[in-house]
């Protein structure tokens, strides 16, 4: 029973992290039609920026996280505005551009910081006991911030003019443009919002998991898994799928060990892609 509850806690905190990553990824796909292969790259940049601020500049960790968010958002903005924007309607080309960016980012980090894992740990440690189970404080804090960020994103998208404009662009670009929405301003904003979320996740999670130039690959794979499961472009679906993926991963590693959980999830996703590309929640997708 304790093991069962412990796994649930791990699953939920993983789910919250995945949700932040997947929301950004699916936002970019939904609004711009871009499959962002660089998503794991922004996650890594977030981690390394936070690491540098704390380890090299001696800044307090919360400030380092904010700087990481700002840096990844700014980089995302610039990348969208100057590179992606030029080929925005050619989906294979934009995909290749993000792939190229990812290669440059991960290799750049490798050159600057070397191949080894960084000594980067969460500033808070210890556990809180809830009845029979122990929850590490760091996980609780990260969970809290992730849930707050998801709430904030929801407020931005559903309660502000910017959000309304972004959702209108995601629904139907032609109609939105006819109504005076300006993709030239909104696309970079959406991309920056999404990469900022990836940066936030990286800054929060890498001190707990690991920080090395290879950590972007599994992040990308998990993002894919989650957004396809949730239905490409669907925000609610991505959030729901993130928690499913997190919980399945936690339970399968506790009870089965190894990668059988991932195998089941990936196979499920393959079948979903082929037979029901609208995902779990069944939202209509663009460009199909």
């Amino acid at each position: 029973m304790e093991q069962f509850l412990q796994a649930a806690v791990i699953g939920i905190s993983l789910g919250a992290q995945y949700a932040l990553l997947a929301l950004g990824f699916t936002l970019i796909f939904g609004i711009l039609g871009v499959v962002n292969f660089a998503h794991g790259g922004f996650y890594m940049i977030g981690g390394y920026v936070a690491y540098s601020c704390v380890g090299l500049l001696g800044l307090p960790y919360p400030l380092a996280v904010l700087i990481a968010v700002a840096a990844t958002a700014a980089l995302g903005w610039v990348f969208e505005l100057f590179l992606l924007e030029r080929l925005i309607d050619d989906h294979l080309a934009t995909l290749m551009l993000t792939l190229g960016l990812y290669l440059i980012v991960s290799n750049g980090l490798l050159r600057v910081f070397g191949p080894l894992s960084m000594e980067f740990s969460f500033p808070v440690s210890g556990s809180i006991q809830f009845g029979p189970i122990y929850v590490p404080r760091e996980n609780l804090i990260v969970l809290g911030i992730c849930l707050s960020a998801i709430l904030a994103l929801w407020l931005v998208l559903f309660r502000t003019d910017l959000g309304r404009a972004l959702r209108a662009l995601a629904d139907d670009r032609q109609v939105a443009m006819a109504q005076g929405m300006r993709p030239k301003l909104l696309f970079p904003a959406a991309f920056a919002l999404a990469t900022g979320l990836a940066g936030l996740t990286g800054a929060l999670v890498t001190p707990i998991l690991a920080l090395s130039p290879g950590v972007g690959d599994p992040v990308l794979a998990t993002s894919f898994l989650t957004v396809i499961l949730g239905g490409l472009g669907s925000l609610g679906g991505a959030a729901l799928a993130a928690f499913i993926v997190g919980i399945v991963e936690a339970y399968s590693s506790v009870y089965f060990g190894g990668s059988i959980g991932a195998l089941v999830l990936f196979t499920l996703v393959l079948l979903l892609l082929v037979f029901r590309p609208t995902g779990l929640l069944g939202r209509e997708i663009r460009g199909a």
Partner: protein
Amino acid sequence: MARLPLAPRQRLLAWDEATAIAVAVVCFIIPLLTKSVLVYSVLNHALIGVIAAQSVWIMLRMNLLTFATPAFMALGGYTVAIAGRYEITDAFLMTAAAFLVPALVAVPLGALVLRLRGTYFVLVTFVLSQIMQLLLFQTPDLTGGSNGIAGIPAVTLFGTEMISHRQVLLFACGIALIATLIAVALTRYFRQHFAAIEENEILSESLGLVVWRYKALGFVVAAGLAGLAGYSLVNMLLTAHPSSFDSAIAVDFIAYTIIGGRESILGPIIGSVALVYATHAFGTQGQYAQGLYGVLILVVILVARGGIVGTARLLWRRMRGPRA
């Protein structure tokens, strides 16, 4: 009828296809000329890259970008490794098996995934190569799991064990030549069909072209070629290991093809040779090459869509332009 000749000049081979085959043939001479370890290593890696990149290229002829190459390479490579356990090492038999096993797996798989286009196809192939990677870890009895299969016996050709460095390289040349011949034969014979699908699938279908048939054919042959690349890789390492078929290597083959140029079969060949050479030149472990690939991909997508071959062709035409 006389005014609309139905058959325009049909050539057996275009200049680039002939050049591709000639390059593959000339490779046989290199191991006979030198014993340089560097040359051997670069050439062997490049030959494997050439085959895998041709597999990517065939799919790109139908506007499909595939990340599934490592999965089919693994099928070909592990087929040979597992046969080696039973002392089956005959070169002809194993070449056929390394092509056919992935090709046969691609038939039902193609029926599933070829329903998707564009970015959805990219995603599904990415998922496929993840699944293959996980499957390798989950089947230790068959594939050795995370340890892989080591100590694979050398290939035997006409009863001779191809064990020396030179023999291994010559064998790699042979596989690459076969792969190039297959790729040229397929894309030459069906070039109008592939070209029509690449440019305008909807119009092609509406004119009566059975698009799925050519896509399936291309997918199956591309899988077979990837299997040959896997064979060549396993034969070079004498080991089949999951890390050799990591989904990340798909990116390398895509980079070779895009940077070399997707419009001609010379593209994947020149791209592989140039980038494998650059990788070796950039560092002993090639770990800094990824950044170079990234920069070159950006350059090709943003300013030189034809890649190396396309840009060279463009410059050549421009130079000759004023006189013509």
